[in-house]
């Protein structure tokens, strides 16, 4: 608490106070009359043109090519790298029609989006670059069970030459 000694100081402080308030008002007034400098995005309206950065981590996807083939060998490196148990890989035995040998292949690549922290460790761990982070971000659903996804397409196969 300051002690006011004389009338000059009293009015001086009032003048200083009004001046400081006007300094702040000058800034807000400037932006009021320069609407072009406003930086907000009109999000739901600009969905068509909105492009996320390439490295943005939205969700894990298994890359499929046009022949419905993926690069996942079912080695479970991503499952081990994941800190939260987000990825579950269920393997099956498959018999190669040409050689007749039984090989390991993925049956289901289960991804629990609700547990994912988007740390990117699974992507780094993958030895065959089978998974990547997609740039989607609208993940809200009405039912929690919809957040558990099977990433491999039905009927998809391992791309030839990956296992070697």
């Amino acid at each position, binding site marked *: 608490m300051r002690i006011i000694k004389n009338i000059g100081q009293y009015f001086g402080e009032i003048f200083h106070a009004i001046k400081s308030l006007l300094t702040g008002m000058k*800034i807000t007034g400037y932006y009021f009359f320069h609407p072009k400098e406003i930086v907000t995005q009109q999000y739901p309206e600009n969905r068509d043109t909105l492009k996320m950065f390439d*490295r943005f981590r939205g969700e894990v996807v298994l890359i499929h090519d046009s022949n419905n083939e993926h690069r996942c060998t079912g080695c479970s490196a991503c499952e081990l790298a994941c*800190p939260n148990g987000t990825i579950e890989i269920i393997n099956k035995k498959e018999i190669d029609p040409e050689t007749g040998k039984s090989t390991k292949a993925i049956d289901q690549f289960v991804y629990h989006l609700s547990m994912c922290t988007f*740390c990117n*460790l699974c992507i780094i761990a993958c030895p065959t670059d089978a998974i990547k982070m997609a740039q989607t971000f609208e993940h809200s659903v009405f039912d929690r069970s919809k957040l558990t996804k099977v990433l491999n397409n039905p009927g998809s196969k391992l791309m030839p030459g990956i296992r070697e």
Partner: protein
Amino acid sequence: MSTEQTVLGNETQEYFINMGPQHPSTHGVLRLLLTLDGEIIRKVEPHMGYIHRSIEKMCEKDSYQQIVHLTDRMDYLSCHINNEAVCLTVEMGLQLEIPERVKVIRTIISELTRLASHQLWWGVMGMDLGAITGFLYGFRDRELITDIFEETCGARLTMNYNVPGGLMFDIHPNFQKRTKEFLAYFKKKLPEYEELLTGNVIFEERTKGIGYISKEDVISYGVTGPSGRGSGFACDIRKLHPYSAYDRVEFKEILYNEGDSYARYMVRMDEMKESMHIIDQLIDNIPEGDYKAKTKAVIKLPAGEYYQRVETARGELGVYIISDNKKSPYRVKFRSPGFSNLSALDTMAKGCKIADLVAMMSTLDLVIPDIDR
């Protein structure tokens, strides 16, 4: 009438009130039990644990690569610096030689994180004192930094860009250009911050001389970071124990001796200029080289104890790892700055009014997940 009333007479009676856990100005779930005499605060007792997630315990089952992403969730406003602290500790244990490029990039992003954190703090500080304008201005400028992070690191807040041994991937080709654009932009916008809040008469009346804490108290409570430096305690880890690329840049350690809310405010305002000065020196001199040193897929630290300190936007963060030569640590302890800073709140607030407590907490820059972990 009854005897009780005659005894009380004009005397006042102390009473308790709960501030929080759901109070907008505590910035999270922090409960303060206030002992009040009218409007005057007699005692402040913080009650914590509302968002305790046992991060230290979870670290004991995770591998060293996985620990890093948990520290994002402690002090989420300086997450890159937290990541760096863990990585530096692990690298110290492995005695890894880190490429110069990694050190410089880490320092630049750390300083950008500090800038973003202080911008958000400045905006929220204005909001706590009743000025919504500041909040929007602070977030407007912070948005540009989060864009830089999103492009290079892949996330805006919980970036997880560090891995033990280096970085997750190299910087984006646009990184240098964007950072320079931001610096040029923000150098013009920082004076706006000063005009809006620093000289404002309402702001000055509510912060000058309020929430005083002496240098002795600051040292005994272990208050670090800008809050400690506002009382004249030279505690900048970047100066005292330089890590990463801080040994090759020139910057001032901001010290104010007043010890009140205004001094703590001014420390952060000046730190923003120093952060920009540091980035200015480094952004054109990123050395060529690898973005990651070679590490094994399964990291096992040699048995022993390792401790590393870094300067986050809030103060000194210490990471203490005890290893027994397994793939996850035996024990991890984080010395978080928010916890120690909060302990000084009682000393600061004694004799002040409730409205001043909000300003004090704001200048301490509390992040509740950092306190609870």
